[in-house]
C-alpha cells in the first residue's frame, strides 16, 4: 500500500527560528513529490521535486529530495508568524492522470 509519512505532526517555534519538515514515502511507482502549504482552506503549491539532490528554493523556503532513501525535507529559515500553516507532502505515483497521495501534514505554529 502506498504510504506518505510526515514528521513531526506538529511543531511550535519562535519567530526567527529555522525549521525542517520531513516527508518519507513508500510508493509502488514514483513520478514526483510535491509540497503544499495549507492555511485556512486550499493547499497552495510550493515545490515539485523530481530529481534527487537538486535543491529547489523560493525565498526563505527550500526543499530537496532523496530518491534513494525515499524522503524529502522542507526547510524554512527565519520563520515568521505568516509561515504558520499545515505543510502537506504529496507524491504523484504516476498512475493514470497523476493523482496525488497526501501525507497527514505537519502543523507549524510560529509564535512572535
Amino acid at each position: 500500500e502506498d504510504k506518505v509519512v510526515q514528521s513531526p505532526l506538529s511543531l511550535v517555534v519562535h519567530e526567527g527560528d529555522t525549521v525542517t519538515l520531513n516527508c518519507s514515502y513508500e510508493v509502488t511507482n514514483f513520478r514526483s513529490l510535491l509540497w503544499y502549504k495549507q492555511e485556512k482552506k486550499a493547499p497552495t503549491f510550493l515545490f515539485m521535486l523530481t530529481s534527487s539532490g537538486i535543491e529547489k528554493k523560493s525565498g526563505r523556503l527550500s526543499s530537496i529530495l532523496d530518491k534513494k532513501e525515499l524522503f524529502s525535507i522542507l526547510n524554512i529559515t527565519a520563520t515568521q508568524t505568516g509561515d504558520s500553516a499545515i505543510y502537506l507532502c504529496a507524491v504523484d505515483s504516476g498512475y493514470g492522470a497523476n493523482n496525488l497521495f497526501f501525507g497527514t501534514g505537519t502543523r507549524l505554529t510560529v509564535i512572535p
Partner: protein
Amino acid sequence: EPEVTQTPSHQVTQMGQEVILRCVPISNHLYFYWYRQILGQKVEFLVSFYNNEISEKSEIFDDQFSVERPDGSNFTLKIRSTKLEDSAMYFCASSENLDYYNEQFFGPGTRLTVL
C-alpha cells in the same frame, strides 16, 4: 493570476439528499480532479478527469459519486444520496499537463455538512 474557483463555499444538506459541487478550473488546463478532506484527516484523492471521461478513481469514489463537465468551463461533483460520513471539505484541482510533470492547482474548497 488565474485560479480555480469553487461554489458554494459551504453547503448544508440533509442525509439522503443529492448535492452538486461546482468548480471552474483554470481555463487552459486539461486535467481536473476532486479531493476530499474529512475534518482532522488527510487530503484524499477521489477522481481525475480528462477528455470528458474519468481517468482514474479511488475506492472512495463509489456509485453514489459522479463527475461531469457540462460545458466548456464547469466541472461538477455530484453525490447522489448523501451520508453523514460525506461531511468533508471537497477540493477541486486542475493541471495543465503540458508534459510529464505538472503541478495541480487547488480551489478554495466547498465545505459539505450532512445532517
